[in-house]
């Protein structure tokens, strides 16, 4: 077997926000080209994990380390992590008043990609002159996030609930875009990786994920094959997983 290149390694991560410990002793490894899925009930700490990997202020690491391509990034700033190839699509992105989406995307894009056709693929062309996320509907916001990720083209995409509040047609559009973002249409030479939060499992139809976790009260209580885990959640709920063999 060929040894895969390790992209992200999280070791014994414990994180506090405010007075609350939101992540407890989390460990995971994502290899190059892999996509992992994060399941878990509301408030279990899924978004917090993505924010901590991104380095967002306020998520205090009490213990543990984060490595990206073997480099310890635990204390790097957000933008340093972004420039190393980590990107995020937010669950609830803020609006940036007065800044046109087009201006931001052109700034993000370092490879002179064809922004217009990218935005067409995501049905976002008519929104390029709108202010970033200002007055965007739920679905528009999700498409705008994925469009920004596509223009950034990160090595590791952290994607927070891309499907929530999205209609069937737009789920198809988003699914295809994420598939492209993570190079899931390629079989061998995949270099892009992802960590995706989902409640509905829709993304599994587009991205044949490699691995999944269930987070409960800040702890990984179960991990394994995404399809099996998802089926189990649907049948027995999250808590039943507590007893699954980890």
């Amino acid at each position, binding site marked *: 077997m060929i040894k895969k290149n390790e992209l992200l390694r999280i070791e014994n991560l414990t994180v506090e926000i405010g007075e609350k410990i939101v992540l407890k002793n989390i460990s995971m490894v994502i290899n190059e080209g892999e996509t992992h899925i994060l399941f878990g009930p509301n408030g279990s700490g899924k978004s917090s994990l993505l924010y901590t990997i991104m380095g967002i202020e306020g998520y205090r690491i009490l213990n543990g380390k984060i490595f990206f391509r073997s480099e310890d990034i635990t204390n790097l700033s957000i933008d340093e992590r972004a420039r190393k190839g980590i990107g995020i699509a937010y669950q609830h992105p803020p609006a940036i008043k*007065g800044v046109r989406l087009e201006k931001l995307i052109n700034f993000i894009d370092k490879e002179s990609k064809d922004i217009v056709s990218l935005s067409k693929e995501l049905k976002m062309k008519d929104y390029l002159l709108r202010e970033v996320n200002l007055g965007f509907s739920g679905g528009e916001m999700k498409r705008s996030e994925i469009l*920004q990720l596509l223009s950034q083209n990160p090595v590791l995409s952290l994607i927070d609930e891309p499907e929530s509040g999205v209609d069937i047609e737009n789920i198809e559009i988003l699914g295809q875009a994420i598939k492209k973002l993570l190079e899931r249409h390629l079989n061998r030479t995949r270099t892009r990786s992802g960590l995706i939060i989902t409640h509905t499992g829709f993304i599994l139809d587009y991205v044949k994920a490699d691995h999944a976790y269930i987070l409960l009260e800040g702890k990984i209580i179960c991990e394994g094959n995404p399809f099996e885990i998802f089926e189990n959640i649907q049948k027995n709920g999250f808590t039943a997983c507590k007893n699954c063999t980890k």
Partner: protein
Amino acid sequence: MQKLHEVVLNKEDKHKLESVGFDVEGARSASFLMNDDKVVLSDVEDMEKGLVLIPLKKGLEKYSWLEERLWRLVPLDKDEFTRRAKDAEGYLIYVPPGLKIKRPLQACFFIKSHALEQKVHNVIVMGKGSSLDIINGCATANYDTQGMHIGITEIYIEENAYLTYTMIHEWAPGVEVRARTAVHVKREGQFVSNYISLQMTSLTQSAPQIYLEGEGAKARLTSLVFAPDNAVYDLGGSIYLKEQNTAGEIISRVVSNGGRITSRGDIIARAEGVRGHMECNGIILKEHGEITAVPVLSSSTLNADLTHEAAVGKISRVEVNYLKSRGLTEEEAVQFIIEGFLDTKLLKLPQSLEENVEKTMELLKHSAL
């Protein structure tokens, strides 16, 4: 008096004038330029239509009605600065009834000499049903110029007339500005003021007084201000809603990058069925910066609708983090947000000036940030 194409400007002056929206190539209905205390240009292209733009003193010789309009809205003895401007030169703009001027009129007040006290007195009379867009620029030739600008502006807007008045300031650290502006608006008339200043000034004081004297008259004042270290701005504006169905709006976006800004606004309702709205948003970027928002709403009627929003604080960390996670540095993220905050879209610019002001603003933001 020279014509626009005859005015010879050196490269730096030309650049300065352009940076406050003065279009030297002249896609304008009329142009006026005052260097220090001398009028060097007063040129009307749309003359045949009856548009008047002449130096104030000439206007006094030519139009007998002007005398009684002088010092009527701004009292001569209002304060020491108005008194100092007693015999000041400036412009008279008169738009005859029914005349709608499409191309903007431009005026610029330029301080070239050191330690000069530039005193300006302008009068604008908008005849019934007329309309005009004015772009006014103020600048100093050199950044190290010391000086003072006292500006008296009296504006009369008759029934159904419409005036937009866009002002761009680009002063210097040693320049003090005392603007005294008052506007009378009659029935269904409208006054729109846009104010932009992103540069240093030792003190800029401006608080136009708008009197909506006729039913259905409207006024809107918008300002975008950036105060670098040591800059002091005292800005305000009062709108008196004196007749039924009048409406006033005061919008300001101010950023302190070390400077001090007081942003006042008064909307005073004295008639039934009036509406007033005020918004003051401020961002403080640096320690020692200070923003004071003083919104005042006053009503003495049962049926007035007055609202205000004010928010002063630091830049949103959520927004900065969002942009940083896309790869922007802290500085780039802050610049993005501030540029967006001072968006010219907030102004109510006439179409003919949109592009020009947007471009000017880009340049100003670039040098300010």
